């Protein structure tokens, strides 16, 4: 299987470990990822709150480059995923299609479908197949699967999981030998777009999320979005300071846990880049 791969800005900076583990896992599962040539920012939240045309043109420009590689483009960032899916939907039904075509000088709207890698994993590769390739068991490690917002909402756009009771991450970690805990905050918002401008709000939201995860008995969290990861992990120290907590919960990308189960070494999965290290926990559980 060959897919165009759109890393997005975060996966080339603060979420370098997501990019590394994504590539390593894809390779181990015989999925060929070819990076979209000259990819540029999808516009994220600042574009869609500023100018609708800009928020559609930026994804479209990338789909145009992706088309040279494949009719399917894979993303790992939930926020990029959302922006591409929104563009896909709007351009299919809207008259602004004509205007947008003019702006980026296009004859036709490229027919490229954007998919999150979790969707590929579950609906193309299949969890059974993943299980068959498992080289290491995750030994009952207790995981709080955090879905956040844009991976699952709104369902008409995100398409592949239930917006109120999502289960794709839970199902994945379960077959890898981990134990997904049941917790109500799995799809609460972390306040991503306010991370720099209203950090106080983000700290409150993430404190609630980490509190709920730890009360449910989680030893770590798993996410599918670099912005969620940054808010829950990079800011964990700030949360502890502000709310006098002593959280020390590693926040893994699902590709990192999957990679460990597939027998990929920790360095290739970027585990050494974590601010809240998972080393101690993994050692304690005997996961090499």
């Amino acid at each position, binding site marked *: 299987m060959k897919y165009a791969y759109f890393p997005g800005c975060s996966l*080339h900076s603060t979420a370098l470990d997501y990019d590394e583990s994504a590539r390593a896992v894809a390779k181990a599962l015989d999925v060929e990822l070819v990076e979209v040539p000259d990819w540029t920012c999808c516009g994220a939240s600042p574009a869609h*709150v*500023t*100018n609708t045309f*800009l928020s559609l043109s930026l994804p479209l420009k990338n789909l145009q480059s992706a088309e040279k590689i494949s009719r399917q483009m894979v993303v790992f960032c939930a926020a990029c995923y959302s922006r591409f899916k929104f563009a896909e939907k709007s351009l299919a039904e809207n008259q602004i299609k004509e205007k947008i075509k003019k702006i*980026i000088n296009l004859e036709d709207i490229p027919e490229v479908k954007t998919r999150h890698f979790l969707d590929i994993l579950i609906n193309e590769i299949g969890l059974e197949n993943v299980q068959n390739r498992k080289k290491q068991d995750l030994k009952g490690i207790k995981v709080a699967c955090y879905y956040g*917002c844009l991976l699952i909402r709104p369902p008409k756009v995100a398409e592949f999981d239930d917006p109120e009771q999502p289960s794709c991450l839970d199902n994945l970690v379960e077959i890898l030998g981990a134990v997904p805990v049941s917790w109500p905050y799995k799809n609460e918002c972390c*306040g991503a777009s*306010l991370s720099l401008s209203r950090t106080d709000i983000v700290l409150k939201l993430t404190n609630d999320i980490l509190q709920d995860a730890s009360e449910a008995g989680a030893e770590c969290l798993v996410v599918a979005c670099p912005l969620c990861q940054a808010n829950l992990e990079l800011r964990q120290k700030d949360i502890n300071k502000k709310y006098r907590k002593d959280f020390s919960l590693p926040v893994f990308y699902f590709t990192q846990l999957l990679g460990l189960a597939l027998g990929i070494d920790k360095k290739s999965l970027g585990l050494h880049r974590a601010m809240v290290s998972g080393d101690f926990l993994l050692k304690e559980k005997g996961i090499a």
Partner: protein
Amino acid sequence: MKWLIDSDTSKLEFVREVEEESGIKIFACYQCSKCSAGCPIAFEMDYLPNQIIRMAQLGMKERVLASRTIWLCAGCETCTTRCPREVDLAAVMDALRIIALREKVKPSERDVQLFNKIFLSTVRKYGRVFEGEMIGRFNISSGHLFKDIFKAPKLLKRGRLKIFPALTDVKKMKDIFKGTEDI
């Protein structure tokens, strides 16, 4: 607080503007408040999401555009997902911010808009986000000089922060930004 809704405040012109910008029929809302019950940012808003819709229905343009709510909305899509009347409230919030910008209403949450502006200007300049410059410029412009600065060395050590921007397809990016602004 008491408001008087007279024929003057009830400018239905505004309803048309919001509906056109968002593509959403705001009179579909029957004020059940489900959106506000699930909104993660409600605790910090000056008007709840359902109140914003009601005010928009009544044409209370100035109050809506001057609210903090429209800037604080995190675009989490919870309201949109849950609304029994299929009112895409997240899209309405986007539309309200866009109208506020167009009409040069001073954003009540200065830093939120400042961040959006700086984010987009680095993307326009480099093609991709360049965190180092973005955070630096945000701190200087917002006056929070040392905000998050102590994270930088740790991130650099872990390879999670870039020193130089990755210049990509800059000419085309410029054209796109220009093209969308001129519309």
